[in-house]
């Protein structure tokens, strides 16, 4: 899958969870194109964000996320990938014109699938999508090494983690890591597929975060 570089897609105003007043004051044409970008702005105003995207909007959402965090605001960060290999993620990031030396990719999938794990300086590999304790340690070590609040952590995605771990464990992890992010003062984003998560899971995740963005179709 390749991030869609050019399109920001359509968003129904009634599912936008934050910045609704601002949206209604803007001309309709600009509203349509600006709504998604403004929506992602709320990530910068919040410590922890739950980003729920439909599968149709997933790629566009991730492109917008990296644009706002890295290209527009020049933040370094950590991207935890459970679905795609670091190699693929790195290639996609580079198409956005984002320098890779500001992004550490924590790859939870390559080792368990036997994909090559050698040769990429911006990647670190965990044993399996079940290695939540190791992931937590890795994030802690990396954030501590950076020693700054001007950074982000993106976990992509909780939906994939739920395929490998019991829901209670994923919720426990989400609660733990969002609290850690808050205590560090950094920007944290938990990504999920909106239609893949049941209401109970979504409701619980919403209470762990400061901000929720839903991009649905």
């Amino acid at each position: 899958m390749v991030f869609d570089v050019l399109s920001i897609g359509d968003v129904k105003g009634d599912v936008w969870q934050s910045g609704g007043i601002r949206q209604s004051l803007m001309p309709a044409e600009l509203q349509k194109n600006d709504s998604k970008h403004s929506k992602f702005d709320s990530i910068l105003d919040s410590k922890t964000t739950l980003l729920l995207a439909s599968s149709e909007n997933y790629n566009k959402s991730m492109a917008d996320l990296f644009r706002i965090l890295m290209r527009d605001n020049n933040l370094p960060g950590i991207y935890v990938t459970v679905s795609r290999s670091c190699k693929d993620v790195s290639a996609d990031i580079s198409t956005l014109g984002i320098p890779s030396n500001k992004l550490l990719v924590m790859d939870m999938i390559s080792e368990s699938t036997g994909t090559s794990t050698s040769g990429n300086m911006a990647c670190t590999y965990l044993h399996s999508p079940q290695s939540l304790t190791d992931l937590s340690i890795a994030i802690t070590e990396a954030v501590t090494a950076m020693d700054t609040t001007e950074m982000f952590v993106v976990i992509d995605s909780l939906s994939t983690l739920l395929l490998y771990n019991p829901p209670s464990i994923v919720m426990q992890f989400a609660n733990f890591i969002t609290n850690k992010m808050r205590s560090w003062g950094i920007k944290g984003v938990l990504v999920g597929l909106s239609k893949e998560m049941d209401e109970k899971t979504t409701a619980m995740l919403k209470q762990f975060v400061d901000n929720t963005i839903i991009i649905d179709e």
Partner: protein
Amino acid sequence: MSALFNPETTESPADNPAARMRTAVERALSDSERTKQISSQREIIKSVVSSIKRPQRKLKSGYVKTGIVGLDELLVDGIPKGASVLVAGNAGAGKTILALQLAYESARAGEKVLYLTFEESEQKLIRQMNTFGWQTDDLIDNGFLQIKRVLPADVKRSVDAIAAKSRGELLIDVPPLFLPANFNADKLIVDSLTAIASTFVDTEEVFKTYIEQLFMFLERLPSTNLLITETAMIPVKAYSPTKTEELLADGIIVLYNMKKGNIRESAIEVLDMHGSEHKKRIVAMKITGHGIDVYPDQEVFWEVN
């Protein structure tokens, strides 16, 4: 991995945050995998241990540290000076590594450490320490660290003597352990009680008598003592061969290996430490290329079976 920046560029670490983060993460995550599984029986065991009435013995004042970062935070006050503490866990959990690391760190801090091994040879243990980067030559040469192999026959001699004395056939006291003369250890490590128990075939009552004598002997020593004991297969019903050891010990540190799907994760807990404040939770532990790292603020994400 020691490089802090991309060798293909002239970037400094400050310009390459990704590399800096990666270095820190790689250092934390390098580990060796072990196997075994525990269950939620630990809560049952914990309540059993807590309910056991211990003979109240007066511990020497003060506390000692292990020198293992993270574990000392878990212990808060430390191990009470003069205490005899069990280090329990199933095979491969890291008990010997923990004990060797404690021995190394304590000797490096200027304490005299005596490590009694009932299974592995001295040379093998020294080699194992060296693989973690713990240089032992100077510590041994300067008298801070002594590793001594104890043969089953030596134990049997003590046991036979203790049994004979109890029958009135022997009038002199024979110690349960023969310690090197003129080596007044600050820390004594026994690796392991399980190995000692294996020499008592079909004589559990005799072994219990020996264990009671052993703990009384250790109580008279000025050293703080660590006794390694291997737990049975999960679920755990006891942390020592006869449960007598748990009754007599002043504390228990438990090492876990949890099977989680197709991976293993390690953890550690201070189950009990008589007379000392300690954190009461299971926390993450990793066995890395430089030894054991304990993460006192790191939860473990396991599902209790």
